[in-house]
């Protein structure tokens, strides 16, 4: 029986990224995927003939350029088309357009409030400052505050040093930014409700939090970061859908001699004498390896494919209390043509970007209140995109595909999900959009409606949480996934975690995959093939 150097469980983008760096270092690596297609949530699928859906993740905004470069993804066919601007449609028939071009955006802001146009200058520079600081932490392993290991102490020293590059007042402002709610943070800059609502939206995507929940402000960075890389590729659509991202990483991985097995569901990680030795597949087949790396979320890893007996009790308790509530839904819609949005001037470029339909912070928060009571939002926050305007490969000529991300959608609609409830949820979302686009409904040829139930069932994201664990302070940095286990090493020897359940968390970023690969290579005494961050380019 063949003996691998490493087994990676789950062919999501992090699993593949992780595997690619190991293979690049000359290790013999196999990636095991339960579905008969790879990509996990980074996937394009043809569910309606002629249409390709990025039916989970839908924009390529955060993927680290360092990884793109060191895995040579361009050569492996990943092409990212820049995405421009975003719009919020207003109940009064007006709209707010956040244009890609800063000066144009400022002009548009002035149309709603002159004062806010001035504030936006201060806003942009402040956000830019925080991005610079945070980006430095993404491709690093978080230190353990309870440890006195030289490496942890050094890492803390590094954090402090970059912290101290700020002035005293900037330090406090940063702490406030990190702990405030997005709605209250924006109130310190903008008076216009639609502008606050527009910039708030991004902060609640995928979270179990509302725009007034402390800790949501910094999520803004997860969206701004890509933007300011100054690297056009970093904020846009993957040509061919998100599947193109996983395809490219897979191809890079295979070019280093890596092996991928689909339809190979892992049932159990074998542990003997406190050391992981391999896995057993659902088929009963046994595969051994020096290290086993899980790209499953923390709950699935420790409560699913691992045996309680093999784990410390405290860790099982932590896994049970891991916060991983699903809060998002997704619609993928095949359109017979391009829908009209009468509010926009003819030929406005804004339709090329995101479109939203919630114009006050209060409406955003009320959408959250519904979710807290296990209802889907009656007035949902929607992030709709029509990538086929850029990428003709995803639909027949003249036709279009609309990707609709929806916040909020509960894990268990009161009394549990049924297909009828799922469709009712879909109808709520479609109604929301058609209020601003009269011909929208008539153009719909096919619609795939996904609630957390579908997302979990298909890609195995527990409770359908797109970040594999909430991005709240208790589950960030050295707390992610659990205090004391934030350095990608599992509780048993030779077992590692590379999923978005680890630092720095969700979003198609690839950073967890790369960081964990660094730790594995370190333990195996191999040369580090993972990229240093570009730093402040």
């Amino acid at each position: 029986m063949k003996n691998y150097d490493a087994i990676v469980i789950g062919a999501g983008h992090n699993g593949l990224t992780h595997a690619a760096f190991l293979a690049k270092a000359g290790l013999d690596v196999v990636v095991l995927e339960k579905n008969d297609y790879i990509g996990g949530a980074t996937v394009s699928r043809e569910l309606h003939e002629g249409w390709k859906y990025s039916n989970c993740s839908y924009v390529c905004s955060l993927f680290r350029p360092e990884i793109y470069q060191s895995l040579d993804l361009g050569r492996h066919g990943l092409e990212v088309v820049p995405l421009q601007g975003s719009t919020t449609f207003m109940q009064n028939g007006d709209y707010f357009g956040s244009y890609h071009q800063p000066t144009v955006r400022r002009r548009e802001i002035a149309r709603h409030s002159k004062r806010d146009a001035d504030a936006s200058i201060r806003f942009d520079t402040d956000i830019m400052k925080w991005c610079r600081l945070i980006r430095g932490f993404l491709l690093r392993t978080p230190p353990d505050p309870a440890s006195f290991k030289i490496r942890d102490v050094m890492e803390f020293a590094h954090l402090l040093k970059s912290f101290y590059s700020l002035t005293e007042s900037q330090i406090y402002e940063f702490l406030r930014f990190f702990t405030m709610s997005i709605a209250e943070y924006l109130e310190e800059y903008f008076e216009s409700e639609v502008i606050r609502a527009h910039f708030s939206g991004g902060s609640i995507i995928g979270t179990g939090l509302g725009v007034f929940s402390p800790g949501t402000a910094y999520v803004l960075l997860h969206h701004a970061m890509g933007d300011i890389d100054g690297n056009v590729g970093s904020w846009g659509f993957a040509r061919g859908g998100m599947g193109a991202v996983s395809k490219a990483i897979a191809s890079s991985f295979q070019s280093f001699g890596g092996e991928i097995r689909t339809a190979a569901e892992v049932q159990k990680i074998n542990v003997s004498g406190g050391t992981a030795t391999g896995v057993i597949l659902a088929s009963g087949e046994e595969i051994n390896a020096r290290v086993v790396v899980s790209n499953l979320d923390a709950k699935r890893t420790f409560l699913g494919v691992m045996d309680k007996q093999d784990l410390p009790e405290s860790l099982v308790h932590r896994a049970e209390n891991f916060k991983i509530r699903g809060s998002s839904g997704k619609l993928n819609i095949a359109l017979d043509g391009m829908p009209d949005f009468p509010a926009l001037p003819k030929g406005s470029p804004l339709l090329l970007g995101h479109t939203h339909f919630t114009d006050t912070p209060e409406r955003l928060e009320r959408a959250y209140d519904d979710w807290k009571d296990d209802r889907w939002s009656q007035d949902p926050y929607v992030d709709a995109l029509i990538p086929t305007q850029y990428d003709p490969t995803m639909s027949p000529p003249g036709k279009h595909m609309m990707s609709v991300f929806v916040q909020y959608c509960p894990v268990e609609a009161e009394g549990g999900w049924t297909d009828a409830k799922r469709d009712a949820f879909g109808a709520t979302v479609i109604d929301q959009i058609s209020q601003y686009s009269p011909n929208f409904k008539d153009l719909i040829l096919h619609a795939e409606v996904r609630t957390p139930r579908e997302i979990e069932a298909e890609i195995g994201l527990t409770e359908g949480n797109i970040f594999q664990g909430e991005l709240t302070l208790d589950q960030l940095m050295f707390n992610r996934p659990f205090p004391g286990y934030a350095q990608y090493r599992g509780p048993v020897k030779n077992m590692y975690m590379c999923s978005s359940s680890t630092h720095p968390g969700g979003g198609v970023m690839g950073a967890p995959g790369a960081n964990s690969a660094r730790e594995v290579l370190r333990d195996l005494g191999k040369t580090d093939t993972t990229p240093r961050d570009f730093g402040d380019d």
Partner: protein
Amino acid sequence: MTNTMDKSVVVVGGGHNGLVCATYLAKAGYKVQVLEARDEIGGGASTTSFAQGYKVSGLAHILHSLNPKVCKDLALEQAGLERGVAIETIALARDGQHLTLGKDSATGGSLSSEDIAAYTQFKKEFRRYAEALKPMMMTKPPRLKGMDHKDKFTLAKIGWKLRFGLGTDSMREFFRVGGINIYDVLNEEFDNPHLKGAMAVDAVMGLHMGPRTPTTVLTYLHRLWGETDAGQSLPSGGMGQVANALSTAASNAGVSIRTGAKVQRIRVENGKAVGVELATGEQIDASMVISNADAKSTFLDLVGTRELDAMFAHRIHKSRTKGTVAKLHLALNGLPQIEGLSAAQLGQRLLIADDLQYVEHAFNHAKYGEYSDKPVLEITIPSISDSSFAPQGHHVMSISASFVPYALKGGWEGQREALVKNIIALIEQYAPGFSAQVLASELLTPVDIEEQYHIAGGHWHHGELAIDQMFMMRPIHGTAQYDTPIDGLFLCGACAHPGGGVTGVPGHNAAQRIIAMGAGKK
């Protein structure tokens, strides 16, 4: 070093913190004068009569965290302080299955043995966390850059307490729960919905937060921090008795106190506070001015923005100070009848908070400038332990109702009656025949509190106790160490670290800071 004894130190506001600060300074040799706008001292800690023959504690109505060091330093017992009867918390149930929540034990209702054990364990563990934060509480918050030795010492002490006081596991757990919400933590530890609802109240009362708001564990610790010293009690004579003890102690130390003296302006010349001007136009020179008022009133109203850096003024202006609690006082023609509660038990701290969702829903409305028709209530009947509060056989009820917005949509005009009806109807559900017992009532919405007690926003803590407005960021960074950008002007009220509650600690810390700086001396 000689005192400029010709000019005295002026303390603006005779709230409990103002009195504490003044007394410490007087003991240190300063000549101190306290100016209080209202006719009685004490501010939020006062006893008022709201109807002929009926008295209550005006704002704060339970003594739960008056600092022992302050009591000792100022000899408050000798000055007449009586903590009064110790009380427990009883969470009311419509079916008479009430829960009693003590300092370490919970009983009653249908509590499982697991929950009872978990409660004791939980309180113990969380008091340890609160203890770990203590070094931060009794001193000025350290600056994060350009620290002085004291700051470094404070940080070192906290680091030590966390790492070795708590130990690796507890420290890690502390870091995990530190930024999380009370809702998740309670769900991790307990089953009984009623117990969880009641416990959550301590984390959110007085704040613009619901149980699911992140950082509510921190606010829960803030509340527990008082419990680490002394339990909660109802002072006989009400909170006014506490204020009286404080003013006696102040007078004994040589502080002169003027009531009915409303400060209209803090006079600033060349960036230095030189005195105050009263509403009457009277000018008082001072070697140093200490404001017990909240930050917005102090800087935006009394000092004026033209004396301040624009960004500083902007941050003060944007600091969040909207109150969320209304105070309702009721005169009753007898004791309310609550099934399963003895007269003695009626004298405890009674809570209405059915479960976590009940509390969260009550909060939801406040976010949109509405009030809930099912508010969270904290009820005391002080006349049970102090018969002087009501005529023979009659009683008074003092209620803190959450969540009641400062900025009610459409304004408060004509809305007060509706809210009062609301609350009485809610209590009726627990005490049949209650509404018929009500003879008179007084409602203080946050707006009324702002007006009568001169607290911007009518906020319990003179400003939201959110993590971005705590510690070295309270009320805002740049004036978090009690001194301000104006020379000779200091803060000593609840708007300063560590915040509100009748603790006396902000006043204590401010005095320590002023003495350490040798301010007001030449």
